[in-house]
């Protein structure tokens, strides 16, 4: 069994008379995105501060790669902590330093890099986080969203192995929120660091998470994958998860995965035994090139465009959709068999080639980078499900039948 990168064993923490953490047991694995969810004030940030060493447990043990931190030498602890970066909930930017100076601070103070190299790295992060125009401004002159991106850039500038994100998307509009989550996922894949997030953005944050930890009544009540969480039967599911989920995804009228299941279940209940339904799984391949050429916001805009188009087409025949992954959408046609679904998809293909693609590229066309060129492929697969069949297996079948339905090249000037 894989040794966890970070492990808590019976960790408890009190502030005065108030117990914040009580016998917390958790495991965080290397190279994964782990999300900690819980109600406000449940001790999520306190938990993160134990990992970074800002707080020490009153009881219990914290282990790093199986070794108790309390038995490590000071130099070893410094080495471990030196690989960790932390993005604060309220950003904790230095208000007397400019954006550029804020991002450069950890490099200037903890490395022996020359100024030219520091400037190069800082400018690279500034470009990636779309902060070019704000580089010489002070944090107080920026919007909340921009401040958040400065904090993100500062957290990533040292190329850390573990990054802790304390509510990285709080106070962001839906589009920017998804862009930040997308950016975290993209950096995590590219740089391979272990990401630990505290977030309220359910279900969006689950799309980028490998593991989820639920903090409930001062303990870790659940740790596992999102799929396992959906099957987990516990009062916390309604209290914690349900209270944080919005009715619909604000981005594109999409349902969360959980609501999507509930809706599907309701349709299944009302269906007679022999009536089939169909599932269409869409994927937007090449989203990384949109990010690289036009930025995260443009990529999110492209996904949003595709989601809106699917909703328009299939909503008219009683269908409903959910975002399944960063670049994947699932639509259920509750009253259509395989043949009818394929027929609807053919119409969809003609329509998307004629009108849909421009909508998908609405974000990219409006992006400020000129001269870049990206190629994106839209894949789709159809599968029929029976009333008593698990939807996940039908989705898997549809995914296995995916084929290319549209391909598009788009340059920075918006030519298609």
């Amino acid at each position, binding site marked *: 069994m894989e040794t966890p990168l970070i492990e808590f064993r019976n960790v408890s923490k009190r502030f005065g008379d108030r117990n914040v953490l009580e016998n917390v047991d958790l495991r965080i694995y290397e190279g994964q995105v782990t999300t900690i969810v819980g109600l406000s004030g449940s001790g999520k940030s306190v938990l993160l501060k134990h990992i970074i060493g800002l707080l020490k447990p009153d009881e219990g043990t914290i282990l790093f790669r199986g070794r108790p931190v309390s038995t490590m030498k000071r130099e070893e602890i410094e080495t471990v902590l030196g690989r960790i970066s932390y993005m604060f909930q309220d950003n*904790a930017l230095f208000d007397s330093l400019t954006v550029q100076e804020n991002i450069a*601070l*950890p490099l200037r103070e903890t490395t022996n890099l020359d100024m030219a190299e520091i400037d190069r790295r800082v400018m690279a992060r500034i470009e990636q986080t779309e902060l070019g125009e704000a580089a010489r401004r002070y944090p107080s002159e920026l919007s909340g969203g921009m401040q958040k991106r400065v904090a993100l850039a500062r957290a990533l500038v040292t190329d850390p192995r573990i990054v802790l994100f304390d509510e990285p998307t709080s106070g962001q509009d839906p589009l920017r929120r998804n862009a930040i989550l997308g950016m975290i996922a993209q950096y995590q894949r590219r740089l391979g660091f272990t990401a630990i997030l505290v977030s309220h953005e359910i279900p969006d944050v689950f799309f980028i998470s490998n593991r989820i930890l639920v903090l409930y009544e001062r303990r870790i009540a659940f740790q596992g994958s999102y799929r396992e969480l959906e099957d987990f039967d516990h009062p916390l599911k309604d209290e914690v998860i349900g209270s944080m989920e919005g009715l619909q995804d604000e981005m594109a009228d999409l349902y969360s995965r959980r609501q999507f299941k509930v809706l599907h279940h309701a349709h299944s209940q009302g269906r007679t035994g022999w009536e089939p339904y169909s599932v269409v799984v869409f994927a937007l391949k090449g989203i990384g090139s949109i990010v690289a050429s036009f930025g995260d916001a443009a990529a999110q805009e492209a996904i949003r465009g595709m989601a809106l188009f699917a909703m328009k087409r299939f909503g008219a025949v009683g269908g409903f959709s959910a975002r399944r992954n960063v670049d994947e959408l699932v639509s259920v046609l509750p009253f259509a068999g395989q043949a009818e679904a394929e027929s609807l998809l053919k119409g969809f293909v003609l329509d998307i080639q004629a009108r849909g693609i421009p909508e998908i590229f609405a974000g990219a066309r409006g992006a400020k980078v000129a001269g870049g060129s990206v190629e994106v492929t839209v894949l789709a697969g159809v599968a029929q499900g029976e009333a008593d069949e698990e939807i996940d297996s039908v989705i898997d079948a549809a995914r296995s039948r995916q084929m290319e339905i549209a391909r598009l090249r788009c340059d920075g000037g918006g030519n298609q």
Partner: protein
Amino acid sequence: MRRWSRKGEAERRLGAFVSGPFAAFGRSAIRWIADSGAAVIFFLLASLKIFRPKQFSKIVQQVYSIGARSSPIILLVGLFTGMVLGLQMSSALVRFGAQGYLGSIVALSLVRELGPVLAAIMITARAGSAITAEIGIQRISEQVDALATMRIDPVRYLVSPRLAAAIISFPVLTALFDLIGIVGGYVSGVMIMGANSGTYVFRVQSSLELEDIVHGFIKAVVFAVVVSTVCCFQGYFAHMRADSHGAKAVGLSTTSAVVLSCVLILLSDYIVTSFLI
């Protein structure tokens, strides 16, 4: 039985009434001793970290902030202090026919005592309060924690440069205060009250010895350590105040820093003077 329990309760209340003030005094004394010990450790840590790499530019920046930007107020206060001394001493010495000693009295009182003390109090009011407020705000807005998470030692980054800058700036500003004070004494004593110009300058030169100037600088360095340690300490631990939180804690810490610094300047002045004389 009931009478006995009533009697016991009354005795307990009387005991609490009598011992209450002593207990409160004891708690305050223990807290004061603990805080003093913490401040001494804080100072020792900060002074050791002055000599770490990457400190030079930060020290220069703080010398500008604490030293250069305090010079106008030092010049102003020094000038008027010297002028008041010139006026008071001139009118008093005339009664004894000793107006010729005006230069000596002005120079010695400024260089030995008034210069270091008043300069330190003025720097506390201007720069010390700013130090506490700045570090306090950085503390409550988690900027200090952010430094720790970036493996930047907050004491090295925030406190050591200010301590070093204070040790550099206080003697220089004291010298500036002394100089402009002597000029002020000349303006009021010679130009307004009519004392002899040559005698004033001669008495200033002849009465001042190197020892007087060195003693003044020693006091200035002691005050620099006291003021910078107290002001940084109050700001650094603003979040741990028991009586308030957030912005109010920063405000109260700033007030405490200024008051405590001024009291400690006068206290340490007496102690240092008693050793030097």
